[in-house]
């Protein structure tokens, strides 16, 4: 590793400057490979300071492990609060599926086949699945649209160890059988109208008595279900969106 050119004014001749430091010695100091006994006299203390700074971890530095793991278990690695990631899109696929199913349970398969005629056969199976096991939260693969089978199917399998929380976007699935509108509300909250199926949005608006009433309608519905939290971010409200915290900005460093 060279770099001496950039350091010309730093490296005076040793006889004039007792603190002169050549790049090789500097590199060894920084790498922790220079024994203080072998360091230039003026840098023996520096070597000791750096060695102490890089000493093996102490117990107190690992004391927070249990708490850190608890937070990890509570939040999971994919809390959908950041940018549009693959996982977030996956969640949207699941949301759209739930929303379509909710529409079907309201308006029936005949009407639905008009909405999405190209997937009529799949929708039929999906409805059967939904009606047959609507309370089972572990059956989303049975209602996976053919066009998104690989990504959507990964949602349950990644979650099955029971660790990370199921994103709020998918919690409507379990409620969907009892109250189809809950699934629509979940979809609406997850993506707001712009990411929501037009048909699903209209169904929700109709149920709410108008598009303007959707927020109040969904809030009331969710409160009634005893599931009042709007998302799964438990703390630090407003602190998670710092200016230097955009995933894209961080990611680029990881790809260097």
């Amino acid at each position, binding site marked *: 590793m060279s770099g001496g050119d950039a350091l010309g004014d730093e490296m005076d001749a040793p006889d004039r400057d007792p603190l002169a430091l050549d790049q090789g010695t500097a590199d060894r100091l920084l790498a922790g490979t220079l024994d203080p006994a072998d360091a230039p006299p003026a840098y023996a203390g520096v070597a000791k300071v750096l060695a102490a700074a890089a000493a093996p971890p102490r117990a107190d530095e690992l004391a927070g492990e249990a708490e850190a793991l608890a937070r990890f278990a509570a*939040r999971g690695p994919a809390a959908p*609060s950041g940018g549009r990631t693959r996982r977030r899109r996956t969640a949207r696929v699941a949301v759209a599926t739930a929303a379509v199913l909710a529409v079907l349970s309201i308006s029936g398969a005949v009407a639905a086949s008009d909405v999405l005629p190209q997937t009529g056969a799949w929708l039929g199976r999906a409805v059967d699945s939904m009606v047959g096991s609507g309370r089972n939260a572990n059956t989303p693969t049975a209602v996976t649209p053919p066009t998104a089978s690989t990504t959507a199917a990964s949602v349950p399998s990644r979650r099955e160890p029971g660790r990370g929380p199921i994103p709020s976007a998918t919690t409507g699935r379990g409620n969907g059988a009892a109250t189809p509108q809950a699934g629509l509300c979940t979809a609406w909250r997850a993506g707001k109208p712009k990411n929501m199926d037009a048909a699903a949005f209209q169904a929700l608006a109709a149920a709410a008595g108008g598009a303007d009433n959707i927020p109040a309608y969904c809030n009331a519905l969710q409160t009634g279900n005893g599931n009042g939290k709007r998302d799964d971010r438990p703390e630090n409200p407003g602190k998670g969106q710092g200016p230097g915290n955009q995933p894209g900005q961080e990611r680029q*460093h990881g790809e260097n």
Partner: protein
Amino acid sequence: MIGASFHQVVAGAAAGDEGCFAVIWRELQPALLRYLRVVARGAAEDVASETWVDVVQGLGHFHGDEQGFRAWVFTIARHRALDWQRHAARNQATPMPVELLADLAAGDDPAAAALETLATEAALELLSDLPRAQAEVLLLRVVVGLDVGAVASVVGKRPGAVRVLAHRGLRRLAERLGAEAPVPGGVTP
């Protein structure tokens, strides 16, 4: 270093595996705390926790090797520390590390005694007394173990500038330690 199993560990943690996350946490938390004790004095634990929240959220879209992962984590930590500094600057005065240096130097043979028994904490105090950019680069190189290129990506500077900062930091540290020996407590930059 996590080593050969690094990619499996990250993938496992991204999938929600606590054991894999624990491996990552144990590997990085001590260095994270040491770094933050210098760049976010008084709030290292809190800023570290915030950093982990971001790391957990971003695990699924990280791509790279272990060195890149460390650089990514410390880039997040740095942003978090800067956020904290901006916040703290409005609310409190900065602590005075110079006083701690003077304590270090007290005794019969102060510099020698301090260096012989130098604890990590004392070393971090000494590093804290350097200009921030120099201290930061030294920590990222020495404590975190990043190479010049990775440090450059974390701090947003060119590799040449990182080398200069590290060099100046080492020199400044030597000046400080040299100045402490004959004149205990007399700290003059």
